[in-house]
């Protein structure tokens, strides 16, 4: 009975984690759609501007947040630790800094709605006004 309960909870959780991710920007942003590669380049620090040359500021969840690992895995195919090591390398070399980190998805959404240059990721949900989805990311990818 307990086993069944655990199984059902796990099924429910996996369903939640497998739930699709949304990459969101400020609704004032002229970009409506971004390619997968463009998202990668933005989040991994290769480019610091949107394709329309407007400055971009990627936002991240706090290290250790389950969604963060799911996002990077889905985006780059790397684990969270690998991504942290990547950033550590760049930070050690200097003049490069990783995306700013926020504790919750709500804080992210709030920040994106406020900052025109912001870009962040959240689970699929009903979004408030002030943000728009530029790409949907499937976690099973």
């Amino acid at each position: 009975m307990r086993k069944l309960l655990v199984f059902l909870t796990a099924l429910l959780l996996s369903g939640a984690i497998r739930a699709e991710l949304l990459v969101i920007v400020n609704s004032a942003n002229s970009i409506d759609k971004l390619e997968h590669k463009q998202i990668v380049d933005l989040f991994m620090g290769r480019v610091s501007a949107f394709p329309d040359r407007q400055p971009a500021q990627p936002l991240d969840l706090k290290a250790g947040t389950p969604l963060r690992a799911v996002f990077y895995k889905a985006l780059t195919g790397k684990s969270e630790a690998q991504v942290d090591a990547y950033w550590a390398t760049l930070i050690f070399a200097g003049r490069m800094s990783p995306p700013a980190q926020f504790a919750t998805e709500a804080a992210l959404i709030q920040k994106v709605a406020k900052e025109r240059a912001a870009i962040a990721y959240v689970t699929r949900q009903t979004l408030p006004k002030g943000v728009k989805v530029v790409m949907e990311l499937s976690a099973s990818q």
Partner: protein
Amino acid sequence: MNIKSLHIKVSLSVAAAALFVVALSAQFFYQRSYQQSFADSERSVQQLLETVQATAAIAAYVGNRELAQQVVTGLTQNDTVVGAKIVANKEVIGSNGRTAADDQQQLIAIALSAPFDEQERVGELAVVPNFPLIALRARDSARTTTIGLVAQAAIVTLLVLAMVYWMMTRPLSQLSGGLHHITPGDGNRLAVSRFHRGDEIGVLTDDINALLHTVATMLEEERQLRHRVELLETRFRGIFEDSSAGIFLVREQGSLVTANPAFFQLAAMDEAQQKNLGESNVIARVFLDHDRASALIKLALVSKRPHSADLRIRNLHDEPLRWVHCIFSSAGNIQQGAAVEGVMYDVTQRKQAEERIRELAETDSLTGLSNRQAADSALEELIRQAPIGGREFAVMLIDLDRFKYINDTYGHDAGDKVLITIAARLRKLVRDSDVVARMGGDEFLLLLNHAGNISMVQRIAQKILAAQQAPIEVQPGVLEKIGISIGIALYPQHGDNPLSVRKHADQAMYAVKRRGKNNYAIYSPGESDLPLPP
């Protein structure tokens, strides 16, 4: 040290072979080791690049010059790398050390992919390896490997040489030296160590010892044989040298091969002359009867049996005649033809004694003439020797006419004197070769060898009758004339055998007696009553 010694030969061969192998393999191993070492260095450079590949890729991906510079600086810390650079978007974002274009062909480069997309090429990491250093290290490594190899080969070679020396060449040279100092028959044998017992060297030693033993046995046998032969030779030489019999060896032609001292003594020759004889005929020189001697030699050779005879030695001076009994026997073939062995010994004394006995037996002691036996045998001999239809001879039988009267009147001494005188007269009147014999009493017999015809016989008979005209002094101062009656028979007219010839001569003589004596008559066959002589 002997340059031809086995050990030197083996050592030189092994050393030459080892040198050859080392020379070949050293070159090969040096090359291989160099290439391997070089490849190792290149691979280590490659690995070095792979180590920093991820970091370099990040630097190229984000175009971070600081990170790129860190990477290339870190690379050039390595002494196998003299220069490094990272290119991203055709722009050098980090470089250190030599990156000159002249080293282009020597660059080792790897492509840099995007950290989050293996498909995307974001740049290139290239280094200039320190090829002189790599080559130097490769050479060092190769040299070390080669030196090790050579040293190993040298040690193995030395070990092989030592083994070969201890196990083969030294025992062999000991064997050879030992054998060299052994004289066959001295009893010495070669020693074999326990280590070599059963192997080839041991077997060789055993075989040599067996051979030495066989040789020693043979030598000993031969020595004993030689000793026996010497003993025999000494004995035979003693017999030969000391023999009183002359022993000699001659060839068929009569030349002397060898002779003992007794031979030269018997032959009245100086032994020193032997050398001067050469091929001359010794037989002809030694024997008076050399024809007989040569005939005996031929006979001995043909019949292969000994033949002997009494032969006379030829005397150079007027020494008394000497006789030897000589036996010839075939001695087989020596070089230059058949040889005959002769043995001779002095029989002069025996011969003289025989002669005396024969003379005594055949002589009438009173008159010195032949006696009846001698006359008989002489007659038989004459007839036997006379060829049929050949030579004739006459038998003359003589009887004194008045002998009984002389004997009776003057005594036997007077009779003897008459007989001696008549005998002397008869002997003087005929040839030496004619036989004059006293047959007993007052009867004499003459065998006239050469009386070829009747007239010759008659002449001799008349001479004999005439001689009797001289008177004989029977006693001092007393002279007597003695008449004789002669009966003659001729051979072969009057008889072909001794008996008939004698008988017919007898008949003729009695016929004379009957007719008045002191005359002669020749037998006339068919006349029983004998006619008067003419």
